[in-house]
């Protein structure tokens, strides 16, 4: 009948996808501990931590934290799941990067509290420092990838950027610029408030209960 009936499907794989993936010794060491958390026969529940394992291993091995299709297939094999069930999970959560990213993954929060506190400035500073134009793109030198994320749950320290697994808080245009310069030098500063305040305590020290004394 139609000509299309004659065409065979060609596997669609982007050239950056590695053809194989194998867990390294460090990941292998972590797997039994992950699987032990779930009852026998329910090991499919371990799919999320297993995918993180793949992503972290890729960071160790290639400097880019992402989950290749071969890695999802390996997780499916280990957990006795159909590969498509792993693809569904991995594509559902945007914490999994499905293509290679830069060394530093800038996850910029632009949800209302951060926006009110000046996330636009932070975004502009990121763009200026990295040369990245759109969301989800990687800078030409492969150092930064910029992603827009929804609330990261640190509104009292707004605006914030999550760089890989660490939060940098209380940012503004200048401090963002300095942060990125430090990252580019390969000297990630200490995570937390860039203004130096303790977690979400008031700037410049406590404003209430100042008379309380604690025996140390």
């Amino acid at each position, binding site marked *: 009948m*139609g000509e299309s009936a004659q065409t065979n*499907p060609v596997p669609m794989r982007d050239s950056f996808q590695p053809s194989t993936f194998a867990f390294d010794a460090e990941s292998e060491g972590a797997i039994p501990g992950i699987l032990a958390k779930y009852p026998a026969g329910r090991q499919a529940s371990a799919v999320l931590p297993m995918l993180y394992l793949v992503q972290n291993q890729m960071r160790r091995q290639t400097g880019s934290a992402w989950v290749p299709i071969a890695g999802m297939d390996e997780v499916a094999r280990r957990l006795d799941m159909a590969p498509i069930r792993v693809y569904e999970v991995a594509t559902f959560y945007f914490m999994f990067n499905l293509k290679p990213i830069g060394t530093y993954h800038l996850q910029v929060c632009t949800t209302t509290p951060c926006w009110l506190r000046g996330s636009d400035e932070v975004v502009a500073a990121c763009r200026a420092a990295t040369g990245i134009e759109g969301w989800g793109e990687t800078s030409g030198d492969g150092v930064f990838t910029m992603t827009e994320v929804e609330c990261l749950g640190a509104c009292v320290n707004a605006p914030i950027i999550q760089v890989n697994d660490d939060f940098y808080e209380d940012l503004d245009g200048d401090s963002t610029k300095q942060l990125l310069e430090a990252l580019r030098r390969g000297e990630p500063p200490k995570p937390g408030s860039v203004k130096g305040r303790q977690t979400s305590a008031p700037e410049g020290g406590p404003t209430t209960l100042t008379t309380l004394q604690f025996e140390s």
Partner: protein
Amino acid sequence: MAKVTVDGIEVEVPNGSSVLQACEAAGKEIPRFCYHDRLSIAGNCRMCLVEIEKAPPKPISSCTYPVADGMVVHTDSPMVRNGRRGVMEFLLINHPLDCPICDQGGECDLQDQAMGYGMDHSRYAENKRAVKDKNLGPLVKTVMTRCIHCTRCIRFIAEVAGVPDLGATSRGEHMEVGTYVEKALGSELSGNIIDLCPVGALTSKPYAFVARPWELTKIDSIDVLDAVGTNIRVDARGPEVLRILPRTNEDVNEEWLADKSRFALDGLRRRRLDRPWVRRDGKLIEASWSEAFAAIAEKLHGLTGDRIGAIAGDLCDAESMLALKELMASLGSANLDCRQDGAHLNASRRDFYTFNTTIAGIEEADAILLIGTNPRREAPVLNARIRKRWLNGNIPIGLIGTETDVTYRVQQLGHGPVVLNALNEAFAGKLRNAKKPMIIVGQAALARPDGAAVLAAAWRLAASVGALTAEWHGFNVLHTAAARVGALDLGFVPGANDKSMAQMLDGGVDVLWLLGADEFDTARIGDRTFVVYQGHHGDAGAARADVILPGAAYTEKPGTYVNTEGRVQRGLLAVYPPGDAREDWKILRAFSEVIGHTLPYDTIDALRKRLELVNPVFARIGFLPRFGATDQAGPAGDPVALSDTPFVPAIADYYQTDPVSRASPTMAACTATFATTPLVAAAE
């Protein structure tokens, strides 16, 4: 039971039913997209909203909500109508308005329900979302922009077909149904997702832009491309069969249809025999019917019955086989055979060669042993029933034969019949402890030199594990040929002193009548044997023939077929045979007159009366009573001991098993696509 009042109508439904089922029991139609009574409940389309009194004051999706005693349901209140209208508006936000060029047009759930709940205009001014189409292989065409994410196809492929290839990736606005990594659907039941799709996202690739549903005449028929006897509807326009769809029959195919049966129909238009041919000086020459008959009559003249034989093929209707048998009898011959593959089937008692448990009975079984069969290839729809039983849990399934993925977990017990002598003790114990054990013997186990011994050994095993009781008959033969059981019912087998198929070949007869018989090596026919081929396709048999009589394919004649269970079913004529081709029984009747042995029937009804006289089972159309095993005595053993030669799969390539599928370009495309998958490679 729970008493539920639906729009003032009181109905009683079993506890655990959904509100939607209660509404249906009350005769209220509930619109739905994702809900399907043979699939798990997803509850994600939200179209089946109803209002329930004393429940949360909001529209409630009836497919996911369990009934309670005393529940009062409204299916047509303002809240329900507004709710459904809202759902429809959301569904249409991203659904393209391409009904005029959509193959689903005219039989589209979304189109139909938009008539009831859709608005006459759209309030949505933004761009519609567009989704890249997926390549799911040569059978299913996708237009994924039309997808409304009901997930029926995902659930069918994962649950019923047992080949979890489809999924929903990404989320929200970006959710897409597909395989993620491009691949063809590796299921023999994949065509059913076309029927399940409530919109035009999944349509038939070979049928794309061919016809509109209202142009088609729809004729009920029976599929003959495997031995399940799937009930089908043949959709034709003028002289052409354009598509084949399943009909619901709970006892046979539920509402599924195997891919070969659905898509091989383009083979019905190719390589057809549409006029008689006679071989003169080594070349086939076009001839008239009278010339062809005269050539055969001349050859038959002076021959005694023992020099004449007939072989019936795998797609024949019972009527034509009876006519051929009686024609042979009038010539003094009982050299008849229907077992082209040489299967050692024992026709002495009906339960020696039928699927006695019945297909619906599979759901009651509590242990299954497969001997020399791969039901996934030989009877995909029946295999889905075994998988359904397996999904219900707690059933050991053993396999003696080639290791393959049959879509459920089987315990591999060995590869050859010798295993039957010393069956794995743990598994034998499970069979003995089972209340309703099933033994399924495939053609691969019978079509071999020790086939009769395997049959006898399988029966002995069935008897010894208690599979043969007055209430339960657990001995089953799974056939691959649609005509086989009917032929055995008619006695289309040689008597003790007559020639079997093997004896007719190699010059054992002078005239050999092939009724659609193509599934054997025609080179084995003796050089001097005069071959009459009566059939519909120019396949192996016609190539060797001295006279070709063009017959009708299964869609072109009314015919009676007996499926592997022994269920007698009738198909109707959907289109007329091409050219000079005629219905097969009429050809035989006409020829009998030429040689002066006129068969005593002028109409198909008279022939069917005759059929009932030959075997009363032919009077029982459609209905098949369940039999227990009345007689424990098994088929006669065979002196040949069980060998340790492994069983060879009965079907090497699922997509090329008969003249119709071999002539089909769609099936050829399937072979090309799937030949590389490990499953087929393993089967070959």
